[in-house]
């Protein structure tokens, strides 16, 4: 089956050959193409070729155009360091004090930062493989982008000291996210949301409710209005906010390996598809084929029977240097389980 057919069958509750499998490949795609990570970040052509090459090599079920979380914040004035051959990271927030919040304006995906290059990459990937595999592109959520605009620690303090400023930051970040989501849909792909700062490892469910939920709701409903379904990924612990994540309207929750798929299935599995959660570092980066196989089987044992379906995925984006053999082993392990997605203790 083609990846697209798998998702259609999964949605309709029809049998398929195997569960969809999504090792969340980001800069590892550069390794597949044999180029440096800095080269793909701002080149639509290379970014597209890298992701197409990675998809063809591994045969996974979603192509997600992604280099790092900072592309929107950078397009709004945050300073990002781009090492020659490692993942980019935030160098300086866009503003140094909450007083400057009014200086911020939403980004224009047509000209700001590396958004135009990413847009070009999406168009090319869709053109090349869009008829067989879902193509998505990452949209960093408003709260997380806000943290890159003012600094994470400053944002954390502001949630308690000056909530109105946080809302301003989230509003302008939401505007960027809406425009970027539109650009992604216009390019033929689906936006895929990630808002790690809303993790319960960082903020309370109350803060999620106040600062995350309203903006994510608007973002999700906008994307739904464009005819696309939405996956929401939040890193780290999320159990206290699963029902709020469902409340955003997202169709699929991507669960980190810090949280339990089995518990998520019981809590929200009748309302949303689940995605997860093979540990990206301890298993996919540091483990071997056998440990990858075990981890995949554990995921399927926990949530292969999720009422709204399971996508066997990594718990978070893969480290750049994840061994190819482990990515291959992940897809192979899902293949081996086949359909129906059942793992009995005896077969482990």
């Amino acid at each position, binding site marked *: 089956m083609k990846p697209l057919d798998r998702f259609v069958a999964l949605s309709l509750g029809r049998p398929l050959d195997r569960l969809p499998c999504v090792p969340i490949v980001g800069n590892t795609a550069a390794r597949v193409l044999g180029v440096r990570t800095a080269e793909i970040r701002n080149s639509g052509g290379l970014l597209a070729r890298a992701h197409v090459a990675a998809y063809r090599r591994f045969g996974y079920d979603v192509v997600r155009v992604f280099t790092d979380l900072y592309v929107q914040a950078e397009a709004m004035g945050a300073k990002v*360091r781009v*090492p020659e051959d*490692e*993942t980019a*990271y*935030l*160098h300086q927030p866009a503003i140094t004090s909450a007083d400057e919040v009014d200086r911020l304006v939403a980004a224009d995906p047509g000209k700001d930062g590396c958004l135009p290059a990413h847009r070009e990459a999406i168009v090319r990937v869709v053109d090349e493989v869009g008829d067989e595999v879902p193509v998505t592109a990452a949209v960093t959520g408003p709260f997380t982008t806000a943290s890159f605009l003012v600094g*994470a*620690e400053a944002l*954390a*303090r502001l*949630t*308690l*000291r000056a909530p109105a400023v946080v809302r301003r930051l989230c509003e302008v970040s939401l505007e960027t996210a809406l425009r970027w989501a539109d650009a992604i849909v216009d390019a033929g792909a689906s936006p895929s949301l990630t808002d790690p700062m809303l993790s*319960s490892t*960082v*903020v*309370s469910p109350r*803060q999620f409710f106040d600062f995350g939920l309203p903006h994510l709701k608007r973002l999700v409903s906008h994307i739904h209005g464009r005819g696309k379904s939405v996956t929401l990924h939040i*890193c*780290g*612990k999320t159990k*206290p906010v699963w029902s709020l994540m469902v409340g955003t309207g997202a169709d699929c929750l991507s669960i980190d390996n810090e949280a339990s798929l089995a518990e998520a299935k019981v809590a929200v599995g009748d309302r949303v598809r689940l995605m997860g959660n093979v540990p*990206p*570092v*301890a298993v996919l*980066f*540091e483990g071997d084929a056998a440990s990858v196989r075990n981890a995949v089987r554990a995921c399927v044992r926990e949530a292969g029977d999720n009422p709204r379906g399971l996508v066997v995925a990594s718990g978070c984006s893969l*480290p*750049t*240097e994840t061994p190819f053999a482990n990515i291959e082993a992940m897809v192979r392990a899902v293949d081996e389980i086949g359909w129906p997605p059942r793992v009995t203790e005896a077969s482990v």
Partner: protein
Amino acid sequence: MKDMSQEDVSLLSRLSDAVVAMDGAETVRLSEDLLLQGIDPGRCIEAGLVDGMRRAGDLFEREEYFIPELLICSDAMYAGLHVLQPHLPRGAVERKKGIVVIGVVEGDTHDIGKNLVKIMLETAGFEVVDVGRDVAPAVFVERAESVGAHIIGLSTLMTTTMGAMSEVIRLLDERRARPRIKVMVGGGPVSQQFATRIGADGYAANASGAVAVATRLRQSPSELRVP
């Protein structure tokens, strides 16, 4: 210094409460009151500020407080310290459990985790030298040697920078600075498995865990040389 009255004791517990309640202004006011009452500032710090921060750490551990709450509690604690510390008698700063050089390794600027560990280590009585974020391996080693550190604490949230942690250990070995200087590591992608593999002396999953690890590292005999 006078003896503690029942009222003074209650003032101290109110100081602790003010830290837990994230109330900086109240923390400062109570600290000033306690000084006026002639209560030993060292005692105010221990039984008031540090006690409050420890309780905040417990609430964080129980997931009743989260990072924003913990940061605002620490702001209150430091505001109180600012009032009390100048009144400590000379030589009274002897509650140091050890010196820790701490920072985020090169290639990353996520520093909330590092800052929380710093807060909790200081609360527990360690002297912490913060070298900041995006810090080259050699800088950790040089600073640790120049301040006579017992421990280097390395943090990262990014897998790409984990190699820099091994590099710090390699540099320390090259200078034969271990086991005099111990290394503890932490941060999102870091695990005990990884810490063991690169030869770190300790790993902690969170800020309160870091206090336990640092305390343990200070208790183990540092003179002991493994052949």
